Structures are given as C-alpha cells and as structure tokens.
C-alpha cells in the first residue's frame, strides 16, 4: 500500500501483475494502443501527401480536340496537351515510303509506322513533342527547323535523331516519341487524350 514515503518508480506501473505464458495483459494494451495510433497516423498522412498529386483542374485538361483540316501534306503543327507539346504531322507519300522501308529489327525501339498511326490514317503522325531522353522539345515540326539525319525530328539538347515515323534512330533517346491516346472524331477533328 502506498504511503507518504513511497516513491513512485518509473517504468510499468503494473510490474506486479501476474504473467501468463510470459505475456502480461498490459503488453496487449500497449501494443493495441500504439497500433491504433499508428493506423491513425497513416490515415492522416495519406491525404497530406496525396494533395500533391494532380488536382481536379489539372486533370480536367486531360483531353483536347484539334482541327487538322488546315494541315497540308508535308506540314506539321505544334499544339499543347496537358501542358506538353504535341506534334501533329501530315506525312507525304515519300515520307511514308521511307518509314516503311526501314527494317525494324535493327531499331532500338522496334515499331512500324502502322503501329504508330491509325488504320487508314497512316499519313497522320501524332506524337508528344517530348524527347524521350530528358524531355526537351525536338526540332522539325515548324517550317525551317532542322529535321535531323532521318528527316523526322532532331533534339538539340543531346543530339537525338528521329525518323519520319518519330522513331529514335541515333543519339541517346531510348524509345520512340510517345504516341498519345487519340481518336478521329471526323476526318478533320482529332481528340487527344
């Protein structure tokens, strides 16, 4: 029984509690309480980290519609999708032929032009204008820009060359220019995203 002269020791106040198989009831309480607090902390931290993910207004930019009726054969335009450049290129017949002539087994990222376009619309090459090396915008879409050794795109940052199908041919780029998800709403309107 505690009296005025008894000091209260540190540590577990229930040390005198009998053990059952080496386990005390207080051990259960300790583990249960700390686990519960742990679950609470995780549940709290999740939204505090998740807030950094793209917000609803950013995701709302996820699809755009582009009118391509003004793009003549041999021309390309740059547009913006999710704050990233998109190249829409109307390939000429010789460019399609050049792309199809390539033996894809020798490519770093083997894909045919047909893999990268939609059936019946092989002249429409739609890719992200983002070099797959480190994210610069390659040249070659606008008139007068350097198109590289393979007449497609050329990235000035680290010298990657892409061919007329947007495939990596030379330089450090590891993969072909990315083809976004898109569909033709009509012959003149394409929906990207």
């Amino acid at each position, binding site marked *: 029984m505690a009296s*005025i002269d008894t000091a209260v020791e540190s540590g577990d106040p229930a040390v005198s509690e009998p053990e059952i198989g080496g386990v005390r009831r207080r051990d259960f309480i300790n583990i249960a309480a700390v686990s519960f607090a742990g679950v609470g902390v995780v549940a709290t931290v999740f939204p505090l980290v998740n807030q950094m993910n793209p917000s609803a*207004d950013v995701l709302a930019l996820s699809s755009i519609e582009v009118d391509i009726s003004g793009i003549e054969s041999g021309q390309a335009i740059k547009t913006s999708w999710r704050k990233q450049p998109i190249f829409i290129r109307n390939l000429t017949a010789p460019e399609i032929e050049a792309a199809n002539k390539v033996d894809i087994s020798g490519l770093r990222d083997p894909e045919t032009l047909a893999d990268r376009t939609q059936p019946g619309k092989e002249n429409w090459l739609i890719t992200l204008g983002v070099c797959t090396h480190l994210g610069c915008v390659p040249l070659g879409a606008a008139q007068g820009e350097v198109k590289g050794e393979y007449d497609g795109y050329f990235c000035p940052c680290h010298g990657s060359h892409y061919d007329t199908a947007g495939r990596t041919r030379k330089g450090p780029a590891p993969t072909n220019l990315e083809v976004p998800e898109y569909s033709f709403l009509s012959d003149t309107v394409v929906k990207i995203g």
Partner: protein
Amino acid sequence: MSFPWAQQYKPTTEFGQWMDDRLPVGRLIYNSLGAGYPTPRNLNYMWNFGSLAGLFLVIQIVTGIILAMHYAANANIAFDSVEHIMRDVNSGWMIRYAHANGASFFFIAIYLHIGRGLYYGSYKAPREMIWLLGVVIYLLAMATAFMGYVLPWGQMSFWGAKVITGLFEAIPLVGKPIQELLLGGFAPDNAALNRFFSLHYLLPFVIAGVIIMHIWALHIPGSNNPTGVSVKGKQDTVPFHPFYTAKDGWFVGLALIFFTAMLFFMPNALGHADNYIPANPLSTPAHIVPEWYFWPWYAILRAFTFDFFFVPAKLLGVLAMFSAILVWFFLPWLDRSPVRSGDYRPRFKKFFWFGLVPCIVILGICGGAPAEEPYVMLSQLASAYYFAHFLIVLPLLSRIEKPAPLPNSITEAVIGKPLQQAS
C-alpha cells in the same frame, strides 16, 4: 533542469553511449520528456492543455505548409486559389478546414492553459519567466491568426485587415503614416496581402522558438501543481514518462475526437459566411466581427464610446485593448500573495469564479454581438471589472486575505497524513 531525485540517463546500447559522448539527443529527450523529468504526482487535467496547444501548433504548421503549396498571395487570385484548394486539390477541403478550425482549437487550448495559470498561480515565483514568455507566445499567436484570416481575401478578411490596421491610426500624430506603412497603401491591397502572407508563414516558427524557451524555463523549477506547494522530494513526483506521456496521449486522442467532429460535421460553424464573398473595397458587411477568440478584446475596444478629457474615444479604446493584455506582463508583481493555488485562497477563489471568469465571458459575448444596447453598457461594466480585478482586487487581496492552511507536501495532499500521526 536536473533535480537531485531525477533518474539519471544511462545509454543501454553501445551506439547510445557513442552518441551520448558526441550529440546527446537521447539524454535531452530523456531529461525533458522521459523518465528523467520528475513531475508532480498530483497534476489534474488542467495540466493537459499545454501539450495540447503544442499539438495544435504542429497541426497548424503542417496544414499551413501544405496550403501554401496551393495558395496564391495575389489580390487578384487569392480568393480563387482558396476555392481551388476547396474544390480541386485532393483533400484540399479537409486540409483547409483543419487549418481554419485548428486555429480555434489552438486558442481553446491556450485559453484554458492561461486560465489554469491564473487560477493556480503558475505565474508566481519562481515561474515568472515562463508566464512572461507565455504572454509573448499569446501575442504572437494573435498576430499570426489575424494575418492568416486576411489571406482568403474574402469580405471579412479585407475588412478585418482594414479595421485592425485602423487601430494604429488612433496613435496621435504618427497614426496615419504608421497605418500606411503597415498596409503599403491607403487600404488593404496586394502589398498588404503579400506581407501578411510572408509574416503569417514566419511567425509560427518564431512561436515555436519562444515555446522552446517557455519549456526550458519550465524545466528549471519544474511544473506547478494544484496545491501550489513546491515539490519537496522524490516521493512528490512521478517520472514524466510513462505517466504523463500516457495521460497526455490519451487526452490528445480525446481532443482529436472533438476536433474531427468539428472538421467533418460543422467546419464552418466558427467562421463567417461573409468571408465566402470576394473582398470588395466599396462595401462593408453589415455585421463585422473578428474571430471568436478576439471577442473579449474587441468588446473592450468598443466599450470606450466617450472622450476622456483630451483623449479621444478612439485612442482610449485602442489603449484599453492593448493594456488588457499588457497588464498580464505585470501580473506576477501585482499579485503578491505567497500562496499560489486558488484552492487555498478563499477570497481569491470567489473573485476568480464570480468576477474574472463571468467578466471575460460577458466581454466575449458582447464582442461578438452588434455594437448596440445592452451590449455596450455590459462591455463597459465588464471592462471596468476586468481592469479592477488585476489592478485593484489582486494587489488588495494579497494584503488582506487569510489563506487556508496548506498541506505539508504534495504527497500529504494526495494520500493524507502519515498513519502514525493520524492515530
């Protein structure tokens, strides 16, 4: 910081020993929050609000840093960026409501913490520095809360900024230039918003620094306790860990239940609907009041409706409002009674419960009410008592009051006198 009866830190691992010789973090924690800090064994639940206020400061800093990732401090888009947080940012509504209600909970904790100090005489020797630093923390917290309330740039934000900076205009001669200096203009605009944002981000870290000094100063004499009798030896104490870590932990859980209930079910209950209207410099809301935690001081400000000789009412109100808090800085020397705890001061106790507490509640109610009768009259009476309490009642009581007999020790107050004496 070290009491002869405190348990000594002994590293249990080789690494702990290695660290202890170089950077004794473990020793610091052990001696300030661990078993090395002996704490009075009889602390009641009023001693839980210090750690609770600390928790809410942490919540404010964490949610605030996150909000600053999405908020834009520009008068043209500030309001929209707050709506962007509410609608577009993942869980943004929750983080903003947590920040808005967290401020209220911080003040609830801090007011009960101050009230505890007032009743149990925690401001008296040898704890004057703890008290003074606490008043500094409170002043900084008020400045921080006020500037934070301006940031959403709604109607209440704008007019709050205008009215509060208008207080400085009451200063004779230099008032107008000071107000223009504070605002960086003639009315709140982009310049004011940006500096408020900058300072609103800075001040919580200043508060955290003063809190470190507040706790440092606390750990010199150790905590006060409900009897006000000093700790006489080891038998009067329990180690901080596990006893008060567990008690604080459980109380934090309880407080968070109330906090989340507010957060999820009535997040706007303490706010003002007018602040969801974008700031309009051409139209003042019909009923403009500050947040609830400023109401008592706001009531004192408005209580002065008359000129006093050559001092205009406007200046009087401002002086009275600031004096109402500044008087706390003199409290340790106004109340000279050697007895700390109100439990052993029969008259002080009556003046505390039937004078000061209702007076502050009345001031609070009047501060939130429109400036009309009967609230003006009530504010005037309550303001008069408020100052009388600190400047007349407390000094007088320390002279004439006959305190009740104090227990010989904390342990005797808890367990009773030793058996051999009782029989």
